[in-house]
């Protein structure tokens, strides 16, 4: 399994992280010592999360979200699965900026993922504003033939957006 790694870049009062590898019992989540306002985390390279990693994450994100505004970018399916299942994985003051929706083509036996972006394609519910999500059940791509079907159960996958 790929070791958990963190790349960090500070940009004024923002800090950008890129997490990659396996979020598990050996993952060392970063400590922030700088004076910053927002934390942006790119999660696209996160490959797997186990139960130990979930607990570590919840312990780490809770105090972080109480101090800073946190933004998740390019969340892979494994992150969205935990967001939907684990209370505290996405606490208040943490926003999903973009996330992937997987598609599969039986004909090509191939997977593809589409990135949905906040405001353009979805919105988390906030106060009296309901959430929404626009997605296609099936897609075709110019560079490859075949019809790709959404490879998740939409009611389950988009649950965190609380669309009814």
């Amino acid at each position, binding site marked *: *399994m790929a070791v958990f790694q963190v790349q960090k870049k500070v940009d004024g009062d923002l800090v950008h992280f890129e997490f990659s590898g*396996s979020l598990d*019992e050996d993952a060392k989540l970063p400590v922030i010592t700088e004076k910053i306002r927002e934390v942006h985390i790119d999660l696209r390279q996160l*490959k*797997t*999360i*186990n*139960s*130990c990693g*979930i*607990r570590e994450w919840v312990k780490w994100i809770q105090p972080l979200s109480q101090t800073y505004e946190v933004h998740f970018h390019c969340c892979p399916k*494994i992150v969205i*699965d*935990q967001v*939907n*299942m*684990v*209370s*505290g994985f996405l606490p208040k003051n943490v926003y999903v900026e973009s996330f992937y929706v997987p598609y599969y083509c039986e004909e090509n036996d191939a997977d593809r993922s589409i990135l949905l972006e906040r405001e353009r394609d979805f919105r988390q519910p906030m106060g009296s504003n309901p959430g929404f999500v626009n997605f296609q*059940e*099936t897609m075709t791509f110019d560079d490859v033939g075949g019809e790709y079907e959404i*490879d*998740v*159960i*939409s*009611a*389950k996958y*988009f649950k965190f957006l609380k*669309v*009814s």
Partner: protein
Amino acid sequence: MSNKNAVKILVAEDDEGLGSSLCEAVSRHGYTTLYATNAQEALTLVRTQAVQGAIIDCMLPKMNGVELSLKIEEQLGHKLPTVLISGIFKDRSFVRDALKQSNALTFLSKPFEVKEILDVLDQTFDRKEEVIQDAIYTIISNNKPTKREIIKSIEGLERVHGFELPLIYAFLVHAKAGGHLNIVNEKGEVSGISFGEGTVVHVDIKDERSFLGQLLVEQGYVSHSDLVDFTFEASQLPLGERLIQANLLSPHAVPIALAEQMAIRLGRIVLDTTYQMNFSPTKIEPKVPCISEMAFTSYLHDWINSKISTVWFRSFFRSWLDHRIDAGPQFEKVHSLWASPVLSQMEGVRDLVSSGTTIQSLIDMGQYSEDLIYKSVYLLLAKRFVVFSDNVSKVDYRNHLARVKKLTQDVEGKNHFEIFEILGINRNAREHEIHKAYREISKFLHPDKIVGAPKEVQELTGNIFAKVTAAYKVITNPEQRAKYIDELGAKEAKSQMKYEGILDQGKDFLKKGRIQEALQCFSDAEKVMESTSELKLLLLWIKMKGIKEGQMNSVLSDSIEKELSAIPPEDRHAAVYYFVKGLYKRLVGDYELARRNFELAISDDPSMIEAKRELNLITLKSSQEGTRTGITSIFNSIVKRFGS
């Protein structure tokens, strides 16, 4: 429902006025509609669009609606949820035949309220999303799912009952899956099981207790006295490593004991409760320690045999009772699985597979207990030896009547919540599970399903269905449910305290040899709440106290063995279990194993006087036999010397 407009409904109606009105009403309700004025257009639309449901007029040009629905099924390879409508064909026998042939959701005679169609669509497509979550049902009725289909089905699961976990584990092992199964219980505690190419490589559950030391002693790798010194030693090193360093333990023993500990922990979450879960596939290399596929089968058997209640099995198999049990992708006539304790009691069952047998027909045979049948079928499903056929055997109204009569008896005098508990629904079940259970029950209790049945069947079914429906309406009311759960929680806490009090008193009587009083206490405890493993063992203890040396016969021995194997694996590492097993081994004449078990009992509970007493008795017996043997041999040698 989250995204109705993704659902495409075909409307096949040659009356354009009615057809366009239907399309408009269904579209306004959120669905996407596709309109066809004849069968050919309808078939073209089905071929080119991802149609998910249909409203079909029975009287279309050149092909009637029932024929069209069958042609659609042939084209798609599966049934399409369909509502049949007709202005001409209204008599009961036509309606019955049409429903039977097409397996449509319902048949509506014109004029009908559009709301009736919309309600059916809503129920179907809300249900459809939840049925997709019944991935387990998909796998157990699919003879040749690919590895991807199995993993995707499991990935699609959002909630699972604890008693379904053995199936999930088994499917992931069978599919040689790699990944992390993450599980969250009602309290929000996260557990996880990691699979690597069909082996279990890691089990992470909240469990303060380590079994390692005990397992090493139990398996004979280290003595209790050697272990004691290390157990309480303050050290960063794990216990196994310390023992190895002190040359008290061979390195090969630790992974064996750790694998057993993994299995104990895996079994500890097979409980009568509901979990949320997700599966995160990833490549994980098999490693040591691990639970191999072969070892896994024996644990699987153990969990099924000792942990899952008959009530739950009944609810799980309720909608499958009349489905044929067919050979699955792993079926083999010659395989060690048939020799397992559960299946070996079902003599001849392997020959019944694929012969038209159903669970109901096995129950009707009267040859096997209901509990044994469920356990056997569950084990065979988990190992992919069997699958359920899509085809339902012809409804036998005598069976249906018997089932309904039994259900009527069971729910008599019960409140609404108790009725659903009888139907196998845990009181902590989420609303979605209650809905699902109600739909399952409706499949065999709804009056529409027994059109044409004898009057007695219809009446009884109608009565019980009304009771279940009334119960459903009450328990899905959030306030009433919350109130009931609070009251029940308080009642249960009181019962638990009462139970423990009575049990302690019974144990006291037992230790003092006051057997009748002990039995009375244990019988009172059973009335307060469901027997724990401890109570079952105490009752077995009393049973064996009543058996004298030489009285043990094979029937009694088998029955005691069965009772011991029904103790869940995680409860087999405590003093009382070792002691009771020791008693059993003594009675069957296996003194060596008896001694071993008494020693284990003492190592777990040094104050267990009964175990010490039994150990002394065995030691005395051995030395007496040794003395007797010695005297006999001296006598024989004297006789020999003076005789020759």
